[in-house]
């Protein structure tokens, strides 16, 4: 009789079939509670980190903190004005280098060689190798990019510890991010767009630049803003390529320090724990703003 009752949806999994309804409901409740616990503790951990930094740092924040440069010394006197300037410079420089390269590489991999996947021959092999390279670079720890930048830009090319070295190394760091988000954005553009455009007799470049890229723009922008966040929060790469001077850089070949780097120096080399936390607060708030921009862009992207 019970066979008959429970046949149907549970028929596929014989282990469940014989368990009484009450027991299955209990298991469901326990599983649900555990999932809630996991989600809740993740959020709690996040709030704890953000909250602790905010509470510790908010006291040191005032207008003077934003407008005065770090004065250095063991006490970590001064504000963060020059580190904000350096961060902005570095973000702009990195984007100028990485965006054209990354978007170009993404377009190449999807629009021009996307059909080659799985084929044999030299060119498809090279393209597959490039894909593997992008995937590998995306998982490489940032200190490796730092070492690379230190060996190539700082030492071999003689740029020294400078904005230029750091910008180029940072561009290498975010290049995989930009390429992959560009690829994903392009793949999300319906095939019919391309077919419709090509059917009008356009060349492939006209299709890509006039139809596909505009449609994929919000997704590409998301990747770019994502990499802004990456640069703002990065320390390892700039620790070994940017030098760490607390003065505002006035040329590409000047050393500097970003906000994240300033937090690291303050926390490891001075007693100014509150200043480090205050800088951390500014960092967290700017990252939140960047994330809000990403959410806005992805919202627009998926609604379309």
């Amino acid at each position, binding site marked *: 009789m019970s066979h008959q009752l429970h046949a149907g949806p549970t028929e596929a999994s014989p282990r469940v079939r014989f368990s009484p309804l009450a027991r299955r409901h209990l298991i469901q409740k326990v599983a649900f509670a555990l999932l809630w616990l996991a989600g809740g503790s993740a959020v709690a951990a996040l709030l704890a980190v953000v909250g602790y930094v905010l509470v510790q740092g908010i006291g040191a924040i005032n207008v003077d903190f934003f407008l005065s440069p770090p004065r250095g010394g063991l006490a970590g006197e001064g504000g963060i004005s020059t580190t904000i300037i350096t961060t902005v410079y570095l973000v702009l420089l990195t984007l100028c280098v990485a965006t054209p390269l990354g978007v170009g590489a993404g377009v190449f991999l999807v629009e021009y060689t996307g059909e080659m996947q799985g084929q044999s021959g030299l060119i498809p092999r090279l393209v597959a190798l490039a894909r593997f390279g992008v*995937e*590998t670079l995306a998982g490489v*720890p940032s*200190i490796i990019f*730092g*070492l690379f930048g230190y060996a190539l830009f700082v030492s071999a090319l003689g740029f020294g510890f400078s904005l230029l070295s750091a910008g180029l190394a940072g561009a290498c760091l975010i290049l995989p991010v930009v390429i992959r988000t560009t690829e994903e954005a392009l793949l999300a553009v319906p095939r019919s767009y391309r077919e419709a455009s090509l059917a009008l007799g356009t060349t492939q470049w006209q299709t890509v630049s006039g139809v596909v890229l505009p449609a994929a723009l919000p997704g590409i922008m998301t990747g770019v803003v994502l990499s802004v966040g990456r640069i703002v929060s990065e320390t*390892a790469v700039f620790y070994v390529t940017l030098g760490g001077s607390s003065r505002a850089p006035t040329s590409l070949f000047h050393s500097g320090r970003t906000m994240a780097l300033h937090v*690291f120096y303050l926390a490891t080399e001075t007693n100014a724990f509150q200043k480090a936390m205050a800088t951390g607060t500014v960092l967290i708030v700017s990252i939140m703003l960047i994330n809000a921009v990403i959410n806005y862009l992805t919202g627009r992207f998926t609604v379309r």
Partner: protein
Amino acid sequence: MAMIMVIGNSIVLPQPLNSNPLTIFLSQARTLTGNIAVEISYATGLHEDALFATGIVLFVMIMIINSSANLLIRGRRR
């Protein structure tokens, strides 16, 4: 990089502090990344080369991990 500030960076294998084996988690240690980041600022010559070698070890490890992840994904697809 974040770990450098809290892991202690001493160049020993992590070992239990007393008879309780769980205290191994209280031991100081140094990661590959930490090794590079801590010493690169004053390394020259052979020392610097050794740090680059550390980078190669780290890179190879990442390549192996990524390739196995790729294999796993591909295995699922088929």
